[in-house]
């Protein structure tokens, strides 16, 4: 039985004035009142990941283990085994790569209830360079059995995901940005459910599947394309990468027959790959393209410049859609002759 969570709601006001991480910190403080088993852990990034808010409110239930990510996730595993409910926050690169084996073997292998809220995902920490970018985490965490992988579109969706992950058994990985990502949702009530894509724009010509920062950009692109090109572009917010909403992908294949994925992640192994698996297995023909970081260590720069450079902002998405629409794709209305 899902435990009902009532109380604080998060709206565009908060999302305009607070970063994803700040909203997360506050939501976790609220949850801490309700769930005495919640404990918070960080590794000298309590302030920047905002789990420090929880630490200030519940100092006895908070552990800042110093700069020691492997120990961080090992301790979280032990706490979970003991019956506590750990929320762990550090940067995505350190959560999934430095402590990758602790997350996989200590947490996922034992199917422990550890909730990982990882900040600075993708190239959101642009000027820091490759040591602090994390364009591999979706690929890595997707491959860990038992793991749920969520990439919220903005602060409001982060609030939804953090609340929902409590009822989701087992390990959950929630990837957020560095902060300053502009909000997309106006309030929390749009039917967030783990594992269910949200159709944020209807359409029949092509489907954009987005997650994280590209959701808002894709919505904007769809609006532009309708106005200037008369194109009907469906946009799916695929906030949960695992388990993937396969039905939504298959529906898009059937109904639009053109799909583009956009993600702040390597094109190998992320959202695009997850979607590609579903398309390939369906045996149906579909024009398809994955847009993301093209299997390279990204360049340095402020995130908005990088999103434009890597074709992840509204302008670039608009261009990409036009390109794919112009591609010679043999339409075949008769699905019956396909496997």
């Amino acid at each position, binding site marked *: 039985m899902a435990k009902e969570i009532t109380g604080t709601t998060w709206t565009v006001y908060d999302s305009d004035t607070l970063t994803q991480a700040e909203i997360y910190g506050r939501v976790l403080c609220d949850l801490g009142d309700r769930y005495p088993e919640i404990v918070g852990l*960080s*590794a*000298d*990034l*309590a*302030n*920047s990941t905002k789990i*420090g808010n929880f630490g200030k409110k519940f100092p006895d239930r908070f552990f*800042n*283990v*110093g*700069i*020691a990510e*492997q*120990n961080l996730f090992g301790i979280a595993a032990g706490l979970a085994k003991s019956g506590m409910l750990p929320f762990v926050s550090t940067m995505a*690169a*350190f959560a999934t790569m*430095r402590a990758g084996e602790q997350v996989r073997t200590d947490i996922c292998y034992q199917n422990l209830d550890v909730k990982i809220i990882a900040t600075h995902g993708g190239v959101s920490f642009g*000027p*820091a*360079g*490759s*040591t*602090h970018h994390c364009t591999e985490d979706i690929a890595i965490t997707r491959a860990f059995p038992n793991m749920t992988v969520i990439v919220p579109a903005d602060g409001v969706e982060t609030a939804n995901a953090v609340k929902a992950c409590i009822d989701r058994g087992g390990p959950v990985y929630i990837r957020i940005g560095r902060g300053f990502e502009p909000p997309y949702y106006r309030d929390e009530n749009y039917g967030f459910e783990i594992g269910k894509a949200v159709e944020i724009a209807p359409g029949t010509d092509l489907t954009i599947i987005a997650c994280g920062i590209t959701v808002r950009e894709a919505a904007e692109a769809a609006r532009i394309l309708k106005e200037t090109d008369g194109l009907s572009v469906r946009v799916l917010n695929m906030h949960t990468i695992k388990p993937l909403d396969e039905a939504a992908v298959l529906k898009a294949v059937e109904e639009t027959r053109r799909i583009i994925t956009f993600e702040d992640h390597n094109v190998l192994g992320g959202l695009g790959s997850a979607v590609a698996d579903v398309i390939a297995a369906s045996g149906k023909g579909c024009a398809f393209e994955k847009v993301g970081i093209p299997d390279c260590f990204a*360049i*340095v*720069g*402020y995130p908005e*410049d*990088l999103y434009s*450079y890597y074709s992840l902002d509204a302008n670039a998405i608009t261009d990409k859609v036009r390109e794919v629409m112009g591609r010679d794709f043999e339409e075949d209305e008769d699905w019956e002759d396909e496997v």
Partner: protein
Amino acid sequence: MPVSEDEVKKLKVKAKEIRKDIIDTTLAAGGAHIGGALSMVEIMTILYHKYLNIRPDQPDWKDRDRVVVSKGHAGVGIAPVLAGKGYFKKDALSTFNQFQSKFGMHLDSLKVDGVDVSTGSLGHGLSMAVGLALGASLQKKPWKTYCILGDGECNEGSVWEAAMSASHYKITNLITFVDRNRLMIDGATEEIMGIEPFADKWRAFGFAVREIDGHDFTQLSRAIDKALETTGAPWVIICNTVKGKGVSFMENEVKWHYGSMNSTLADQAKADVDNAI
């Protein structure tokens, strides 16, 4: 040979110049890890202006000494030093952090001449330094490897794995410095995750240890000379330093781990540096 008084004077002038370049670069970058860059200025200055055998016009020269700044977030404290040595022009520093710049906060060894290894994820540098030092021995090369660690960084287990291997392999062509400025991001090292008794830990791992004032060129030079001449054990020089050293409003202030300035504040910071003895 310890530094002469005259040398110390010159090094102090250099250190001031480097501090001001760090401030200018932080200003241009829109923010940088300035606190930990300022605390290691004397270590960097004495290495680059007294000890290192390097050829800035030939950055890949095979027989150069190697430097691994394991606390890679202090990139803003490295790039100006390299510019000062002529690896590239100083005005290139104004692109720091900017779109398509070769300088991100954490320096990339494939992009920035003079950077021997890419660092930034803490706790990697000493292992790579051990590998470099082993490689030099295997190839019977005389060059040395110098590694600079942060004190918070020493929370990482990997630092101690590297330390264990350095003494196991009896690596003596490597000198390790710890910038013991007693602060990390979330607070004081001893409050977040205590590392004391720190020197004893290194001794227990088989190191010869010196504890010095990391802003004192004479002490630095004595310690480095000693480390270069003795061959029994790997050396660590624990440099007691002040985070934000040289800029009064940054000294020992945890919030200046990473900070940005406007030009008024930068001018004030540079005036502080000039006025220091």
